[in-house]
């Protein structure tokens, strides 16, 4: 009897339910992705989906695999910051679809100051945070004072910042290409230091302290949300603006602050990506970077928990990087974007999954209670 009780409690546990729901989302996402691959070309579908899931393990030699594992991690760190950005705003009742725009502005600040003013990496990082925070605060202020829907405001700001950053960074681009000048040759002091971390990953020079820093930030976000008065106030504002106002909280200030923090996190993500030197900004980009949108996927997949976000961000980046290795003769790398999108879609059903689980538990309990009653009658 006791063991049964434990089993029931395990399923009724919120964290276990979240984990199960996320796994269901992933499996459904992969399954639908497989079907799409199958429709395009039945022969290679199985191999393509395993390639996506294997990502760096695609390389048979362990040191090469390790090196690419490092690259995946180096890109997971910025994604984790975008995830935290989306998650933080969502916890406070705001849907920050503008993480991409804040990321863009962060990239603009970081790269412009790194290349044009030869600023050291920590200055660039701080400026990236500042840029993202300002853009986030703008969306927050529009929402707080003028009741503008934050989703639409954020989308508009995304496009405005994309065009603005493209224009600004054209001043520091290579003459022959559309990409910004590489940091490694132009200003090595702007590269985030690695402090020996790269030796762990077969000398992958893109592995920097950004990776452990991003995990530390995840923990900080958790502490801020769960263990501080500010976090409590912000969450209260998210649950009910009027109740928060009635309780004497400054609801407008809280909203703006939330979006500023959220934007700062996304801006920091851009700093982590571009200041590790793994990517250069293309000034001819016609769409805002996908990082912010993948952040939405990872935030929900991680059950909207900062620690869950660490794992979900890695997973999303893992399949995104894995998409680069599918057979280019038949498929394209966007298949991982498709899988990520399907996963987000199914995340919308998480509440329903949980509802089903709880109902089953309740039914089982009722059944047990009834059988116990019967036994008593006998």
């Amino acid at each position, binding site marked *: 009897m006791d063991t049964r009780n434990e089993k029931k409690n395990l399923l009724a546990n919120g964290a276990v339910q979240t984990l199960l729901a996320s796994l269901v989302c992933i499996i459904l996402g992969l399954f639908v992705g497989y079907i799409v691959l199958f429709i395009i070309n039945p022969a290679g579908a199985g191999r393509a989906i395993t390639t996506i899931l294997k990502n760096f393990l695609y390389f048979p030699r362990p040191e090469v695999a390790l090196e690419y594992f490092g690259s995946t991690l180096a890109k997971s760190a910025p994604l984790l910051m975008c995830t935290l950005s989306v998650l933080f705003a969502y916890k406070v009742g705001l849907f920050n679809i503008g993480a991409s725009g804040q990321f863009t502005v962060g990239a603009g600040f970081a790269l412009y100051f790194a290349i044009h003013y030869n600023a050291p990496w920590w200055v660039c990082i701080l400026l990236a945070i500042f840029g993202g925070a300002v853009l986030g605060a703008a969306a927050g202020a529009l929402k707080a004072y003028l009741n503008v829907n934050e989703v639409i405001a954020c989308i508009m700001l*995304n496009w405005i910042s994309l065009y603005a950053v493209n*224009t600004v960074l054209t001043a520091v681009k290579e003459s022959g290409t559309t990409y910004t000048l590489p940091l490694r040759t132009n200003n090595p002091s702007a590269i985030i230091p690695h402090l020996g971390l790269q030796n762990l990953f077969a000398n992958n020079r893109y592995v920097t302290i950004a990776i452990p820093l991003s995990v530390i930030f995840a923990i900080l976000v958790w502490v801020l949300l769960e263990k501080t008065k500010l976090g409590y106030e912000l969450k209260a504002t998210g649950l009910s603006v009027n109740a928060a106002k009635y309780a004497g909280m400054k609801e407008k200030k809280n909203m703006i602050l939330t979006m500023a923090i959220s934007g700062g996190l996304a801006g920091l993500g851009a700093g982590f990506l571009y200041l590790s030197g793994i990517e250069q900004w293309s000034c001819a980009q016609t769409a805002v970077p996908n990082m912010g949108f993948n952040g939405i996927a990872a935030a929900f997949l991680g059950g909207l928990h900062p620690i869950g976000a660490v794992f979900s961000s890695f997973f999303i980046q893992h399949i995104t990087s894995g998409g680069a290795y599918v057979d*280019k003769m038949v498929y394209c790398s966007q298949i991982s*974007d498709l899988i990520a999108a399907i996963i987000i879609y199914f995340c919308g059903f998480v509440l329903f999954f949980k509802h089903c689980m709880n109902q089953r538990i309740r039914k089982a309990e009722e059944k047990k209670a009834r059988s116990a009653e019967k036994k008593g009658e006998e």
Partner: protein
Amino acid sequence: MALLLQYTIIYATVLLLVALGGCFSERSGIINLGLEGIMVAGALGGALVMKYMPNLSNGAMVVSVILGSVIFGMVFSLFLAVAAINFNADQTLVGTAMNMLATAAATVLVKGINMAENPNNVASTIQYIDQKKAFSIVKIAGFEVNWFMIITIVLLIVANIVLYHTSLGLRLMACGEHPQAADSVGINVYKMRYIGVLISGFLGGLGGIVYITAGVSEWKFENGVAGFGFLALAVMIFGQWKPNLIALTAVIFGLFRALSNVYSGFDFLVALNIPGTFYKMLPYIISLLVLAVSSKKSRAPKAEGIPYDKGQR
């Protein structure tokens, strides 16, 4: 000048169609942030018809392209309907997922088709140079009247009649204001909301095909529709969820969007020496300003975004 007018009208047509779609969905109580994705789906449907049936006569071409895009748009809108109406999903999240889904799926699909035809063609582009000509009716002094403009005007009139003068429209609006009250007098809220979302799929899909045939004869599906679905939502909000006001707003927004295409043709605009990117930003800046001015006293349907719960009062 004719060119500016031409582009203004084309973009206004797109914005009007898509914003009307958003209006029907929101009036029934479902926030449709997936309009952008619905546009991509509709555009894909129409483009595929043009690709695989290039030899249709003009009339048949117009009808089948419209059918293709409308069907794709409506089927795609079911993603929102099922999740938001039957499963009480977060409408913002589902809408966002749909936007990503549509662009990714269209890219994967078109690239797959292109690569199957020619392994060296890895572009996500569909061409329709000749097929496009079927949409044009008459050209007056450089201004081309096409079938979409006529259809849009008809649809605007129909939308007005349906929304305000039929029991369907009045019931639909009741479901967006107070679904429990509507249910209490025997209106099927779920059905009404399905109708609202499907109409938005119809109009959004149509808007998608009009958008990708506006001024260009090929479309790169990787680019999606560049935030146009969201511009349409801004038009809808500024239009206060009323078809006629929406039409007026769409023309104003269309003008600003058209400027980015044709500003170099105006001497006084060139003389201002403003960088071209500013004109690209212009529609987004204007819509932010417009939203900032009009959102404070916005009269959104009261129950929009809230999943219908029969047990609630």
